[in-house]
């Protein structure tokens, strides 16, 4: 399973689109600078669903404790897509091939 920042961004983008699931998001350009709060106006429950989908995708490779713990949902929604990519990348434990 690829854990490069590019692969994480692609996964995240796909999850954002499928979770929001409205017409506008399908054509909306999502990049590292995109902000969940200001640009996507994501609802807190949508962020939870995206986080859960990412966790499910990476399974035990991703320590959810490491990347979400203790942060309020408002702090998380205040992140950019790039911030979240970095968090996920940092929390992914390298596994032997």
């Amino acid at each position, binding site marked *: 399973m690829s854990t490069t920042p590019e692969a994480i961004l692609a996964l995240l983008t796909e999850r954002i689109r499928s979770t929001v699931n409205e017409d506008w998001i399908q054509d909306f350009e999502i990049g590292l600078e995109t902000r969940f709060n200001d640009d996507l*106006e994501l*609802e*807190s429950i949508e962020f939870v669903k995206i986080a859960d989908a990412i966790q499910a995708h990476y399974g035990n490779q991703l320590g959810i*404790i490491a990347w*979400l*713990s203790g942060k309020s949902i408002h702090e998380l929604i205040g992140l950019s897509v*790039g911030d979240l990519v970095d*968090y996920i990348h940092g929390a992914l434990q390298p596994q032997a091939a």
Partner: protein
Amino acid sequence: MSLGQGAPVLMLHGLANGNMATWFSGYASPLSAQRQVLLYDQRGHGGSTLPKRGFDLDSQADDLVAVLDHYGLGQRPVDVVGHSMGALVALHHALRTPSKVRRLVLVDAPMPAREFVAPSLLGAGSPEVLSDYIDSHLAAVAGLGGRRKERLRQRLTALFFETSLVQDVLRMDAEPEAALQALQVPTLLVYGRHSPCVAAGRQLARLLPNAQLVLLDCGHYIPEEAPAALRTQLERFLEVPQVVAPQLAEAA
């Protein structure tokens, strides 16, 4: 949603603007280092469907049991944490089947709801009044604009005016005193010092034989208003040593 492994904790959110996000990152994630934490969107909330009826405590406690059964936990005692309406559901579940509840945490439980909750629901007497309230209070407090405010408006309008919610809450009396006095489940009552519901906390503390009341310096929305203090109380009462998250590199 189930996070982590260990002795199970089920967490219930409050009415109207609550959903799994109430507990998810600030509480459920850290607790899941040592416990299995279960979250769900209660009926009519978050990603759950909006049924026309069934917002009474019996139906909602049935939902809770269905979730536990889904995760194969229906036959053992679990810790149950609830905020506001979620706390009333948790308490109702404990009174119906005390053997299925290991410990109970009631966060600003507004008992009786017909007194503490109904006025604010009735205050939103029409979709227009509700809409104004969302603009002036809810959205302002949560810093919502645009798309999120519209979605909240749609959801609450449907919940308030297309379901039996308001009628169900109007019928929600206090739990019978004798039943409360007989409930031996260890219970933590966490209330906001400035919450309109604090009298309910004092009443429950008086009646429940195995309860402790903790007042925090906040209002009703304790999970959002006093996250550090509430988390400390939960970890203390549920005997979960605090876990410090591994330090991550700061985002560049």
